[in-house]
């Protein structure tokens, strides 16, 4: 199809049998309303799934898979294809067996059942969750050929839950004294008992103890029945199967905040406590897994932008690897710590393109190039690679992950 102009396609001379002949689906029954009490995508969309990369990890229970962002549009990520990261697999934990302990520097250490949590005032918010290692395989060069693999450690859902502030207040923070130097340690119920330390200021700000995502219960793989939601901060802090919250006078410096999720700089020193996910964007289509197949003429370039610092205010798109830029259209005004969808309604006539997107957030932060990042950090940071991504679109409409000068 590539190479045909829309005009040529329009001059088809013979009637289309899909129109002139009565098709089976226009005559006989489809499925009844009892066919799928809980439905899945249609079989023709079977490629829109989470994928994992076998060679990344020793096994699949401490591993990751990737959201098929190249095939999605809008901003909400369905739970069914939202990426998963486990450190000991996705566990099955019944609501009846769920307990949440709050202890440490609180007035009264407490234990909550799942039912207790549903009795606190609830909030609803849409937030993105990005793994700090998203795009981490790309530090040393273009490696994985698809937006799903380079940028798919992210999802965006509407959460329902209780403010962590409310939960802490129920236990009482009087015993903590001055809150300025206090921390909250959060820990999961799975065998990895992943635990992270969060400064009190963030804990009392916008953190949620969530039990629903996109209207329904959290999925098993996202921490059913209860996970933490830490808006704008790296996904590892979003502890799943949350079982314990401890108020402390310092951080635990657990394995997940020392051995991992620290960012080694060129000189061998490492940054720690790099919690915020900086502003970032990626073009989801066209992209290596979503080539242009429709020929020349009108083309929609689209992608996602987000920032852990707040709302996205602008996204620019370049077709020439960063020499010139056009400002894209945001589908809606950016919302704090949530995915923003952008579109560039444009035209393509078979010319090669080096597609890039560049996000800006409400703090004025401008997404950097990979070279800018490398200059400050070297190539061994692993985490927080929020560089501008380049797709090379070829005359046949196919696209490849590349780096440019």
């Amino acid at each position, binding site marked *: 199809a590539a190479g045909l102009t829309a005009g040529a396609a329009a001059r088809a001379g013979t009637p289309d049998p899909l129109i002139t002949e009565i098709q089976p689906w226009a005559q006989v029954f489809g499925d009844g309303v009892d066919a799928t009490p809980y439905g899945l995508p249609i079989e023709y969309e079977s490629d829109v799934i989470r994928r994992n990369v076998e060679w990344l990890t020793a096994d699949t229970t401490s591993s990751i898979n990737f959201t098929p962002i190249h095939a999605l549009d809008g901003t909400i990520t369905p739970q069914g294809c939202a990426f998963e990261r486990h450190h000991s697999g996705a566990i099955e934990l019944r609501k009846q067996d769920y307990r949440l302990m709050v202890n440490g520097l609180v007035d009264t250490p407490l234990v909550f059942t799942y039912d207790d949590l549903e009795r606190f005032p609830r909030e609803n918010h849409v937030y993105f969750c990005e793994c700090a290692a998203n795009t981490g395989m790309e530090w040393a060069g273009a490696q994985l050929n698809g937006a799903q693999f380079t940028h798919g450690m992210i999802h965006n859902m509407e959460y329902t839950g209780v403010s962590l502030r409310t939960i802490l207040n129920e236990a009482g923070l009087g015993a903590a004294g001055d809150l300025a130097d206090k921390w909250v340690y959060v820990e999961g119920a799975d065998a990895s008992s992943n635990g992270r330390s969060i400064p009190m200021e963030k804990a009392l700000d916008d953190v949620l103890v969530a039990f629903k995502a996109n209207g329904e219960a959290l999925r098993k793989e996202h921490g059913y029945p209860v996970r933490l939601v830490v808006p704008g901060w790296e996904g590892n802090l979003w502890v799943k199967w949350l079982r314990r919250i401890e108020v402390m006078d310092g951080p635990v410096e657990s394995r997940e905040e020392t*051995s991992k999720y620290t960012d080694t700089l060129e000189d061998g020193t490492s940054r720690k406590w790099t919690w915020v996910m900086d502003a970032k964007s990626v073009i989801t289509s066209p992209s290596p897994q979503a080539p242009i197949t429709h020929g020349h003429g009108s083309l929609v370039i689209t992608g996602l932008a987000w920032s852990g610092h707040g709302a996205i205010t602008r996204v620019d798109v370049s077709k020439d690897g960063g020499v010139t830029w056009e400002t894209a259209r945001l589908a809606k005004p950016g919302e704090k710590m949530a995915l923003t969808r952008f579109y560039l309604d444009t035209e393509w006539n078979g010319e090669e393109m080096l597609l890039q997107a560049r996000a800006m957030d409400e703090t004025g932060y401008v997404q950097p190039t990979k070279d800018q990042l490398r200059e400050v950090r070297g190539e061994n940071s692993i985490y927080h690679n929020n560089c501008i991504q380049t797709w090379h679109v070829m005359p046949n409409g196919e696209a490849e992950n590349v780096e440019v000068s």
Partner: protein
Amino acid sequence: VLTTEALANGKLGLGREALPEEIAAWDVDIRPDGQGLPVGSGSVADGEMLFSDNCAACHGEFAEGVDNWPELAGGEGTLADEDPVKTVGSYWPYLSTAWDYVHRSMPYGSAQTLTDDEVYAIVAYILYSNFLVEDDFVLSNENFLDVEMPNADGFIIDDRAEAEYAQWRTEPCMSDCKDSVEITMRASVLNVTPEDEASADTGEAEVVQVAAAAEPAVD
């Protein structure tokens, strides 16, 4: 009593007071200053046997790592190299982290099966594998803070605000932003992207090798 007092403070009176036994069961995190460490001890010699039985299948007899499973020893002085090797010895700033993690999360697949003394012994052995203690060393809650971790001073607190934000919060260039653009690297050179189940399986051996060169890392 919880209810009366709680409700008086604008609380909802939900939940119940955690019992000491319950807190003891779950509050087992260990802090850098040793807070949380139980009384106990374990020797390198015991640790060697325990490690061989419980850990070596994945982490190697000398904690050097097997295949894609993590190495726990070695890598001293590599942090500024092109390919740093990060282990308990070369990278971890606090010994407490090792004790805490082994105690709570290892062995992988049978977490929380080790006794406190066994954890002391295994951690002693990991130190030994990293040439940080002698073979007759016995680690205990008493000498725990005496162990010096080589990379203890290797960390700085997130300085992106100063090192990056200040310089990137500028009005971005819209045209003539560079003189020329060349493609400097292509994903197809490495060719490590899974395409479908079949091709991913057959290409696996080769893939791991090449990918290692490009530093795949997920954490």
